[in-house]
């Protein structure tokens, strides 16, 4: 994919690049820049048997698990802080109910795994987590690992540093790289060719983006190619690694998008209340995801007033004095 126009609508992007059984990675961090519009569309299209990779994730992965789109998850942290006390609500239920395969890593490990994948390496070394159960206890059993050719046979592996002088022991952990079938991220800006600009913290989005075979980027705003190239030092993802650009204002709602809008405490609290019970969670999905045709329909349900209440102050990038209780 080179410099042609990659702009397409939500439904086409998901139809073309996300398939049942795919291994997908999702960008964003807890309550910020989750690619929600893309996630809702995956649920609407009824994708199944997905294998999900995230580091610290909040809303998108919880919905995918709750909606029954995912068979397995590899992660380091699942939750939206005080909006899901004790952890992501549907994620917790799935694990406690034995309904999903899962594997725990640390944030740095997941990040290095994506970085390894982005650079074409089979693994990356890391010094943390020695002496912990993250090394000792493996979530996926041998049978599951064997049945799934896209995942390695081992969760991780400790070796001795081969470069010490005098043969001194120095342990280092190797973690396997990840090359997902598809990565989904939500950015502030992009152009039609696919050059992407993330404002504020990039988290691990850039590494996740580059590690994937296919990359779908939703964005708040489309810039002209000339305009995005006026400040190339603010851009992170080269256009030829991008497969689809989807323009979706408020595409991360109810999570935040720095410079555009804050997270929506009202909606996150509503989700918390509804997600606890299977019946009300189903009602949430029916009302906000399955019962609407597009992200515009979702935003109408959320309401213009709510969206204007969370609109960011351009000076600080969030909504000062927002009632976040």
């Amino acid at each position, binding site marked *: 994919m080179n410099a042609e126009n990659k702009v397409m609508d939500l439904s086409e992007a998901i139809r073309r690049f996300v398939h049942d059984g795919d291994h997908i990675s999702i960008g*964003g961090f*807890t*309550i*910020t820049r989750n690619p929600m519009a893309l996630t809702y569309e995956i649920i609407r299209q009824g994708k199944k048997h997905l294998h999900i990779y995230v580091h*610290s994730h*909040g809303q998108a992965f919880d919905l995918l698990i709750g909606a029954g789109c995912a068979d397995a998850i590899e*992660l*380091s*942290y*699942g*939750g*939206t*802080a*005080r*909006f899901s006390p*004790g*952890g992501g609500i549907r*994620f*917790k239920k799935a*694990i*406690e109910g*034995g309904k999903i395969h899962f594997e*725990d890593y*640390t*944030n*740095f*490990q997941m*990040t*290095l795994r994506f970085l390894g994948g982005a650079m074409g390496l089979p693994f990356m070394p890391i*010094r*943390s*987590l*020695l*002496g*912990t*159960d*993250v090394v000792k*206890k493996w*979530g996926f059993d041998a049978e599951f690992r064997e049945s799934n050719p896209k995942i390695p046979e081992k969760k991780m592996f*400790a070796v001795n540093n081969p470069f010490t002088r005098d043969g001194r022991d120095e*342990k*280092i952990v190797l973690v396997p790289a990840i090359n997902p079938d598809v990565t989904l991220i939500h950015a502030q800006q992009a152009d039609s060719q696919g050059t992407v600009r993330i404002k*504020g*913290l*990039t*988290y*691990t*989005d*850039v*590494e996740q983006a580059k590690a994937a075979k296919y990359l779908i980027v939703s964005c708040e705003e489309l810039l002209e190619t000339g305009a995005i190239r006026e400040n190339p030092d603010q851009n992170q993802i080269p256009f030829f690694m991008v497969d689809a650009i989807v323009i979706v204002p408020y595409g991360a709602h109810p999570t*935040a998008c*720095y410079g555009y809008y804050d*997270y929506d405490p009202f909606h996150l609290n509503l989700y918390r209340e509804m997600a606890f019970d299977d019946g009300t969670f189903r009602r949430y999905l029916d009302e906000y995801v399955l019962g609407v045709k597009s992200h515009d329909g979702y935003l109408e349900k959320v309401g213009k007033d709510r969206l204007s209440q969370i609109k*960011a102050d351009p000076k*600080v990038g*969030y909504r*000062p*004095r927002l009632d*976040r*209780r």
Partner: protein
Amino acid sequence: MPQYSFREMMVLVAAREIRDGDIVFCGTGISMAAAMAAKHISAPHSIIFFETGGIDSQLLELPLSVGDPRVMFGTSINAGLAEAFGILQNPFTAPRVVGIFGAAQIDRYGNLNTTCIGNYWRPKVRFPGCGGACDAASYAGRTIIFMKQEKRKFVEGVDYVSTPGWIPGPGGREEAGLPEGGPTMVITDMGVMRFDDESKQMYLSHTYPGIRPQQVQEEMDIEIDLSRAVEEKPPTVEELFLLRERIDPQGLII
């Protein structure tokens, strides 16, 4: 004497432990309030550092997560996780880092569980997971841990070691292959525990005004040394004003 809550006390005790010039690695929740308090009270030149890549954030408002847009304002650098954790693992910066985070379970050596209660594969209760705390506790020069003082949270062996403390005691970190560092204090809603220099075991170092050492022991499933406990200094009016008016006026965390 002013009225205050033990939760306010926890934030202030942590703030007093942060030294001017420390690089403060902050977890989500009460840790962020403590880092903000330190900046205003005892350590104006400390650096608030987030695993998400926010480096020296100027927190005008209390963030609710380390990924909150509020951590991106007025930073020295807005980076990402690879850069932030790389700085933490860096042998020249790691000793300057103090990590602050909470957990669901702790043992006498300060090993933490933030993953699950019960069998890992089919747990009774699943928690969010280890996040970046395991990485930070592996590298940081010192770590401060927030706990709720409850019997089921202070246990002989945690159900899952998400984050390393002193592992099995003296020499444990070295044997496991971890860099120097380790937990220095545990702050609860009743008092403060520290770790013995020799045995690396937890002992009671402070109780809050009005709390007796035996009361703390009653809220623990492990027996610890109470003989060194002294009373912690209560908050001042100025400190409380700062917490209530400046740091958390909506009562989101404290």
